[in-house]
């Protein structure tokens, strides 16, 4: 059974159809890419997956559970974590604190543990901090633990956001243009990072503009154009797909 399954998904804003009849499945352990020109509906799709918007048609399921009507928070509980196109870090908190917030769901202390600083709370906090440091190391930015997220360089912020998302130990990680604004060497490191994430057992679904990166990294790709799915397949198939070539003609990536 696939981890993420979309079937006939559609979304309209008033008279405007942002997405229509989108269907694809993401297998567990995949690195899956969504590409398409600007305004193709890629971000809208992510926003449907985390219930920022509600979809009007079709069905979406994560691990076999339908997410129709579920809140953002409930979907997070199903094991979906994400990053944002325009970074949404907790800018005035330390990098470490950012990642520790990401661990919220895997901690179990209650309000009373928090109030009374019980043994459980203290143990969990120590554990959470240790894991957070480890994650910062994993994404390659150890040393910034105590710095405010806002003051970090852009590339570091991107990685910090990935670390925060990973902190919840998601089954499915949604990356919204993770390479945007990175220089070539940073992009190169990003590719290895995403592979390492997948190898550690997290399925990755990413939106990206950088065609080279997507072709290099993803095992399967869906192409959106004007809210419609015009192709799905392995990188080689996508590269040769006539409708994809047509869509990107005049706007080569």
């Amino acid at each position, binding site marked *: 059974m696939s981890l993420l399954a979309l079937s006939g998904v559609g979304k309209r804003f008033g008279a405007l159809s942002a997405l229509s009849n989108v269907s694809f499945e993401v297998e567990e352990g995949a690195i899956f890419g969504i590409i398409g020109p600007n305004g193709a509906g890629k*971000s809208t799709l992510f*926003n449907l997956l985390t219930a*920022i*918007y509600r979809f009007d048609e079709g069905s979406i399921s994560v691990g076999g559970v339908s997410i129709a009507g579920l809140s953002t928070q409930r979907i997070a509980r199903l094991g979906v974590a994400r990053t*944002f196109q325009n970074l949404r870090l907790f800018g005035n908190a330390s990098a470490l604190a950012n990642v520790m917030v990401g661990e919220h769901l895997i901690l179990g202390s209650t309000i009373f543990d928090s109030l009374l600083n019980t043994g459980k709370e203290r143990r969990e906090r120590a554990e959470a901090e240790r894991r957070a440091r480890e994650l910062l190391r994993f994404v390659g930015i150890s040393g910034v633990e105590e710095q405010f997220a806002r003051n970090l360089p852009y590339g570091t912020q991107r990685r910090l956001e990935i670390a925060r998302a990973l902190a919840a130990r998601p089954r499915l990680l949604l990356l919204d243009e993770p390479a945007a604004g990175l220089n070539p060497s940073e992009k190169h490191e990003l590719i290895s990072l995403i592979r390492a994430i997948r190898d550690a057992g997290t399925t990755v679904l990413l939106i990206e503009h950088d065609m080279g990166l997507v072709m290099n990294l993803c095992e399967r790709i869906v192409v959106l154009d004007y809210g419609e799915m015009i192709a799905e397949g392995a990188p080689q198939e996508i590269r040769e797909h006539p409708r994809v070539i047509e869509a990107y003609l005049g706007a080569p990536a």
Partner: protein
Amino acid sequence: MHEFLAQLANGVELGAIYALIALGYTLVYGILELINFAHGDVYTFGSFVALGILVGLRAAGALHGAGLVLGITAALVAAILASALLNAGIERLAYRRLRKAPRLAPLITAIGVSFILENLIELWQGSAPVPFPNVIPNPQLQFGELEVGVQQIVVVALAIVTMVALHFFVQRSKLGKAMRAVAQDRDAASLVGINVDRTIAMTFLIAGALAGVAGFVGGVSFGSAWFLNGFGAGLRAFTAAVLGGIGNIAGAMLGGFLIGLLESFSTWLIGGQWSNVAVFSVLILVLVFRPSGLLGETLPEKV
């Protein structure tokens, strides 16, 4: 029936005053997303300025015949000017430098300004209500079962004329168009050459002027001015603005009249001591169940 009509007239009169104040909240909120908490005190200030002029003129024996009309006009104009300048001054000194501050900062500042104004007015005029000179003749007119005073008619008429003028001003004039543009998108407005600072300052000036009109008619209508009047009236007017749909001019007028009627009828039916509870319950209910108000539109959150 007689009592019902009397309360109806009462509510409309109150509502006219609240609507005038509510317009000030709505204009400012529309453009800055700021609840100008000091707005109620700008209204109080207008009341006291009008009161001062009338008392002075009466003491000078100038309120007879044509002098009466002139005197009343002078008091009204003075209240408008004073409130407008005060409101614009507050914007310039306190709010302008907070435009990029975190969201709670301007509101906290506005509350501070309100407290300062209230205290200064108290130091100036004392802590007891000051009677408003009873200069406008108030013969009662009978329309069937409905009995209304000339004062009530003047109050409501003045309020309605002001609101109609405001409506046309915002819809038609260049400044009005600039105000609407800045309200929609400040950056875009400044890109097309609109002077944002000036437009915001003018908005405060106009909102203050409306509070000045309200200060005058409120003084006439309540027969007194009090340093804390603006707090209660301001909250009612803000409720009115929210009820109508904040940022929406027609909504503020509608909300004002509805809150005026609510107050007069709740006072009549369940007693004046419950009118605060009634008004604030409406505020809470509207915000919880229809935060966009009666005439407002809901906008989805931007991501």
